[in-house]
């Protein structure tokens, strides 16, 4: 056990699974870097250095740099998964899904069902998501709602270094296609992370803090924001549950419903575009299944319905923050049920 970054936790997760299982391979654009050049091999280890060192340990047969052909190599990863390998394919930025989505949602996701249960496709696709990097509209999106919508995919969104290691090992051992979302502004986040491999099961939310007044569900990096807001609220005498669902498919609705049964108030924080996102998904299930427990409206804290702007001040306005969460929770505390006319 020692302090490790989110980046290092990911690297360790992949390395330990590659050691354990010779069918695990890694592929992506510059996951090593230096292919065909006269300079250093493993020059990059991925665009932000996450897979650095893997090619040195496991060689170019198991760590494959790809051409700039996402449909080709993500499809190849799907085909390899269905025939005996366990590929961990990197799609650099999730924003690039638009050139290879078919291989994910019509092929890998549907093999098992279309083929009558005879296919097993242990595929992991890692990708960066999220705003805050000043990377503008085509490199800052969340997009996990699109994948959550698709039956046959699993969707994992780890919120800290500890979480990312356990969830990635689980993803690699899992027998279904997994889309694994890494937050690009969290790579240098640091916390205690065990050295040895461990898994965190899918579909079990993490109740990161407990309280009596408001339940806050937050996705990915928003878990930090939610806890920051909860700290502030606690000083004002308002205590919160903060739930990190960890995986949005499968989604642990039970934990959310249980907490709402206790608090009667729910705030959902989602960095994804506001239409048909995780906030609406969770809200709708609660409004259907726990209506009787609700003491107030369900509040959603999301970005506006716009692309991600480049200008730093606009981007900061775009992303949900602790202020907005705090305000939402307080509004619920102040809500008075009016008798229907």
């Amino acid at each position, binding site marked *: 056990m020692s302090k490790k970054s989110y980046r290092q936790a990911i690297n360790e997760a992949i390395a330990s699974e590659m050691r354990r299982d010779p069918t695990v391979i890694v592929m992506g654009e510059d996951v090593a870097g230096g292919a065909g050049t006269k300079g250093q091999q493993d020059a990059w280890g991925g665009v932000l250095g996450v897979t650095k060192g893997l090619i040195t340990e496991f060689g170019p047969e198991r760590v494959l740099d790809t051409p700039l052909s996402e449909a080709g190599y993500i499809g190849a990863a799907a085909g390899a998964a269905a025939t005996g390998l366990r590929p961990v394919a990197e799609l650099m930025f999730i924003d690039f899904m638009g050139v290879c989505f078919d291989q994910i949602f019509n092929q890998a996701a549907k093999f098992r069902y279309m083929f009558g249960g*005879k296919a097993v496709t242990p595929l992991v696709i890692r990708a960066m998501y999220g705003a805050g990097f000043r990377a503008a509209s085509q490199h800052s999106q969340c997009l996990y709602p699109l994948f959550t919508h698709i039956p046959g995919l699993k969707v994992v969104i780890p919120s800290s270094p500890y979480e990312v290691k356990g969830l990635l090992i689980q993803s690699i051992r899992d027998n279904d296609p997994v889309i694994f979302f890494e937050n690009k502004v969290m790579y240098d986040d640091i916390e205690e992370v065990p050295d040895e491999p461990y898994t965190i099961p899918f579909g079990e939310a993490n109740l990161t803090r407990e309280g009596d007044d408001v339940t806050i569900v937050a996705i990915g990096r928003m878990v930090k924001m939610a806890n920051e807001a909860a700290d502030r609220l606690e000083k004002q005498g308002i205590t919160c549950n903060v739930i990190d669902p960890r995986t949005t498919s499968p989604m642990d609705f039970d934990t959310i419903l249980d907490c709402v049964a206790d608090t009667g108030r729910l705030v959902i924080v989602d960095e994804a575009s506001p239409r048909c996102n995780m906030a609406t998904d969770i809200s709708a299930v609660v409004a259907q299944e726990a209506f009787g427990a609700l003491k107030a409206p369900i509040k959603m804290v999301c970005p506006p319905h716009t692309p991600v702007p480049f200008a730093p001040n606009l981007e900061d306005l775009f992303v949900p923050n602790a202020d907005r969460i705090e305000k939402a929770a307080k509004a619920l505390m102040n809500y008075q049920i009016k008798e229907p006319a």
Partner: protein
Amino acid sequence: MQLSREDLLTAYRTMRTIRDFEERLHIEFATGEIPGFVHLYSGEEASAAGICMHLTERDHIASTHRGHGHCIAKGVDVMAMMSEIYGRKDGVCGGKGGSMHIAEIAKGMLGANGIVGGGPPLICGAALTAKTLKTGGVAIAFYGDGASNQGTTLESLNLAKIWNLPVIFVCEDNGYAEATSSSYSVGGTQTKRAEGFGIPSVEVDGHDFFAVYDAAREAIQRARAGGGPSMLHVKTYRYYGHFEGDATTYREPGEAEKVRKERDCLVGFRGKVTEAALLENKDLDAVDAEIADLIERAVKHAKAAPLPTEEDLLTDVYVSY
């Protein structure tokens, strides 16, 4: 022609099975009993048969919407295929896939595909598995002239080349993508395209089983020996419309009939092997009878087989969830 008598009978049996399967579906579809879209492979049999003759179960193929022929040639059970096309529970995919999604991975058949160009990337993956696990296997991507214009197909040519994968790209050019002529939709030529990516390629008469068989042998041997990908441009023709129900008015009147009369792969095969006295007509007639019976049984069985049950709707989405 270094094929044994047994091999020749197998080749003929495969082509005959495909032909009869498709001709019967053509008839059955017209009755309205078969649901969904059905794309028939009649006329193109020599391609699937000539290529898959070289394969065993360690080898993989990826097919297309026009997949029945590839399935049969790769050894998928004909009874289970017919049941699948009727949407029955004992279909090869439990009735959940239908004609456009017939697959049997255990047989090395990675699926028909409802997405044109869906197969080539997948087959690169199967080839990567073969290369990584050193199975000795090769992987075949069947795709049409229309599919040759999909970015997925073109990217796969490059990927297979630079990773030196044991892939054979088989472009089955039947002259049409739906109602569009390949003379309109395909810039350049298939063989030059492959060469543009550094991949050896050859054009083959797809009506001639032996031409396909020989070209495939060379490409597959090269792939098995670590020589990387090849591409075969198989010139062929589909006797029926794009899908069942297509009036094929985009053809010249008599066009299909002429090809059927002059260049049919079964007729050609029979002519060659009997002339060369490798087989007698009665050997082939016996195969015909055998297959006629098989198809009859398959259709009877499929029609009578039970549908999936309500619970089947929810199963097979995930291994675990």
